[in-house]
């Protein structure tokens, strides 16, 4: 986990946040604008980055069973998950 965060910090903070914003752009389609869901799908804004990384990792490995999230999480690397986690944590 620490390695994961350090990797993501290897990029300048601004570029890394832009990357997180780009990667997280599609999340809003289900989880609402900036992760604030108006409907039936859980909101994800403000989740602590370590919790988000753990959740996405568990969906990816299959340790946690969802509906679409297993299929989606498998499409992202550790590094990308860290960038997404940082993005939503910043929207606290």
């Amino acid at each position: 986990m620490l390695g994961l965060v350090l990797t993501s910090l290897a990029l300048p903070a601004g570029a890394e946040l832009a990357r997180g914003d780009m990667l997280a752009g599609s999340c809003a389609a289900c989880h609402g604008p900036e992760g604030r869901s108006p409907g039936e799908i859980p909101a994800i804004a403000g989740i602590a980055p370590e919790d988000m990384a753990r959740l996405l990792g568990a969906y990816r490995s299959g340790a946690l069973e969802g509906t679409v999230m297993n299929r989606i999480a498998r499409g992202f690397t550790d590094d990308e998950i860290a960038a997404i986690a940082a993005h939503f944590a910043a929207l606290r």
Partner: protein
Amino acid sequence: MTATELTRRRLIGTALAAPLVLGRPAAAASGARVAVVGAGFAGASCARALRRIAPEIAVTLIEPEARIVTCPFSNLVIAGMAEIGSVSHGLDGLRAAGIEVIEDRAVGADPAGRTLALAGGGQVGFDRLVVAPGIDLRFDAIEGYDEAASAIMPHAWKAGAQTLILRDRLEAMPDGGTVAIVVPANPYRCPPGPYERASLIAHYLKARKPRSKLLVIDGKDSFSKQGLFLDGWAELYGPLVEWIPVSQAGSLLAVDPAKGEIVTEFSRFVADVANIIPPQRAGALAHTLGLAGEGGWCSVDPVSFESILVPGVHVLGDAIVAGAMPKSGFAASSQGKACAHALVALLGGQGPQAPSFINTCYSLVGPEYGISVADVFRVGGSGKIEAVEGAGGTSPRGAAPEVRRDEARYARGWYASITTDIWG
């Protein structure tokens, strides 16, 4: 908390201490103007993302309709499960986001002179132009199926008045009638859409006109989420729905609206209510601006969405060939946001970073029976948008009813979220 966790928290805290100012030279993009044509899923997502990530860029959005009526969830309106107002979205949310919205139709552009011409006589200047024209229905492809015929045999593939014609014709049909949905060959807008429509019309018929019959006359031998749809139809509707693949009846040749006739290579059908979904091409403006190539669709750079035919003009959504990405509202929105990031980089004199996209398409097989397909996409070594291997896929076959109920709930949740994200 362990020392490692403390370190980690501090590191993350440091990274997040800066406000969400993105990695770009703000001064270089300052004063830049982007014009976006089309306030659908792609265009409005792009305009809104631009305002959010680069507020110093002036964004003008050109859209002739005061309200966007979405194709997603319009099948519920057809089946009497929702009102048209619930799938209609005004443009005030976009105005509130700082976008200049002009209610007019773009009729031409001078990419070299960087101006867009409007039907009302006005002009809009731009540094970069984004065109999200959606689709046009090909009224030249099927004998007898022109725009006038679509008043009797609606396509309902652009939501709005057409949606209501199909709904009203279903309501007026007596019990024991035959409904036919004619589905085109690929590519077309919303690959699973015709089958969701079949499902919800079947739901309506089963409840209200149970002696009726629904024929799905397909231009293909396989379709999106096929196993899941066929399982669901067998489970919920039995023999009420009949799917007829192209290998059985052949391709659609002609229709006769006055007689309700549908003529294929090997068969002739008569329907009381016929829904003809014709072949499609990129929306008219794509052709006017010379953006469309062979087959009637637009080819673009998969990172920046800049047209390969007209430099400085970016094309999004259902109008483009996007590799493995389907023509869906979700995909269009994902492209719109990625394009916004690319525009900010380009206007700042930088190269755009490699994008990543998601598409999740929910379909309702019944009101409490949802299924989905989800994929993650990137630009692959081929230089095309490819689905990430090992990720993605459809809902499992044979799943418990609770899983279908959850996905039906999530389908509604998706619609609430994406429409709030784009037009809210």
